């Protein structure tokens, strides 16, 4: 019941917003290339969902969504594993922490997607490797930094308590640091999941196979097929939402008994 109650305000708001959008485009006579009506986007979604590519048609949204989804998910998984794994190692080995963590913080402040063209040169533009590499690089830092913080920001009295039990460092890691890092890990997953889709699409703008959401958006836009471009954006949003939902679910699994905030 409470869940349903929490659901209806955003649904009502969303439907109202779409209706207002539709009415505004019709009422003010806004050109479709500036802002297509939601109904036009919906019909583009229908016709382009599984369209035959070739002969002037450039869009197959189902395929594009699937391919971009693969890039995002693969990059997300690898980035999360790498970020959390390195965070664990830096907590365990002081030298690694002192040398690597400051670098990671600096690297985190640089816009990673700017590296996409360079990754294309490194990993090639024919396969998905280059785009996946961009997603990994984007996902890695929030996960690494959050998990590392969760592993180190442990209450001083909790550490003293463990010392009073004569607990070994490995026990402290297993019983205190890792569980303490779980809410941080959950937050980083919720950050990283939508980020992975953004990174995948931006990377695709810079090159790679054309049957992906990124090229589909740019090509349709250049042919003034804005309804199709918007339809591709809708697919991308749904992809991001699905990944966010999965991240939320995993986050709840790893933090049993703790309250989960949406943001």
């Amino acid at each position: 019941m409470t869940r349903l109650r929490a659901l209806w305000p955003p649904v009502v708001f969303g439907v109202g917003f779409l209706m207002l959008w539709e009415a505004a485009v019709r009422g003010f006579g806004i050109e479709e290339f500036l802002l297509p009506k939601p109904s036009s986007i919906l019909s583009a979604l229908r016709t382009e969902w599984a369209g035959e590519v070739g002969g002037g048609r450039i869009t197959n949204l189902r395929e594009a969504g699937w391919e971009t989804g693969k890039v995002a998910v693969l990059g997300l998984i690898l980035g999360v594993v790498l970020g959390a794994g390195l965070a664990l190692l830096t907590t365990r080995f002081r030298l690694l922490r002192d040398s690597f963590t400051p670098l990671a913080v600096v690297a985190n402040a640089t816009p990673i997607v700017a590296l996409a063209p360079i990754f294309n040169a490194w990993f090639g533009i024919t396969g998905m490797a280059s785009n996946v590499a961009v997603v990994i690089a984007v996902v890695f830092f929030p996960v690494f930094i959050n998990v590392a913080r969760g592993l180190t920001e442990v209450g001083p009295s909790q550490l003293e308590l463990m010392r009073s039990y004569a607990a070994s460092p490995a026990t402290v890691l297993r019983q205190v640091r890792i569980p303490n890092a779980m809410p941080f890990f959950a937050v980083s997953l919720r950050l990283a999941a939508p980020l992975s889709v953004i990174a995948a699409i931006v990377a695709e703008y810079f090159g790679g196979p054309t049957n992906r959401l990124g090229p589909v958006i740019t090509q349709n836009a250049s042919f003034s097929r804005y309804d199709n471009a918007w339809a591709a954006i809708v697919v991308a949003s749904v992809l991001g939402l699905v990944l966010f939902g999965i991240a939320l679910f995993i986050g709840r699994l790893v933090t049993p008994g703790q309250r989960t905030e949406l943001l």
Partner: protein
Amino acid sequence: MTAVKISDLSMTFGAGTPAQVNALDHVNADIAEGEFISLIGPSGCGKSTMLRLIGDLLEPTSGGVEVFGKPSAQARLDRDYGMVFQQAGLFDWRTVSANVELPLELMGHSKADRSTRSRQMLELVELGDFGKSYPWQLSGGMQQRVAIARALSFSPRLLLMDEPFGALDEMTRENMQTEVLRIHKELGTTIIFVTHSIAEAVFLSNRVIVLSPRPGRIHSIIDVELGRRDAAIRESAEFFKKTTEVREALRGIESGGIESGGIESGGIESGGIETGDPQ
């Protein structure tokens, strides 16, 4: 039998630096088994440091502590004492009973044994119905009672308490004091209790050790024999006489021109020794 023997104990933080603090300076004390001892004094007098040295959570600069006839380090390894801090320090990801069971788990007790013990301990602190709750669902006073149950779960003969009720409101605090006294009577555990509150120290203790700061020394030891301890005793002439005695001892320190503030907050609790380092 002597529970804790403190011999010529000194502790200096930041030796050789401008921030050098003589937290404890050649302190001697004997604490008998079954005693309830309070350590009281202005901020910076080294009372928390003394407690941590007894528990081997810090290394003394010189001198030593024996707990039940063993060096304190050995006593820690033998898990001879339980510890309760101002923050309950419960683990959010564990239920209340799993928190109480943690020390038993680390000591390799069987599952059945652990759940029996944790049920007993939660009954003891009157939280029998809350085993399945999570810490954040409990009030501050209840969380602190869970911390006490956890400290007692493995039946240590010594309980070290560092301002355990400092963060609680007055009424909860008095209830907790009554409860700790009941536990002390029931289990016969030796208790060393750090506090800022004169009334608390007098109400709870057999002896109150008054410490003076910079350098941290024992200023005086006040014997308290109140007999039965209940709500009524707090309003008795006897109680008033003892609190006055402790207050005057503390005032004697203050008028000695010593300013307060310092090491307890700056040097230990938030300090770097334990907090920052992954072990």
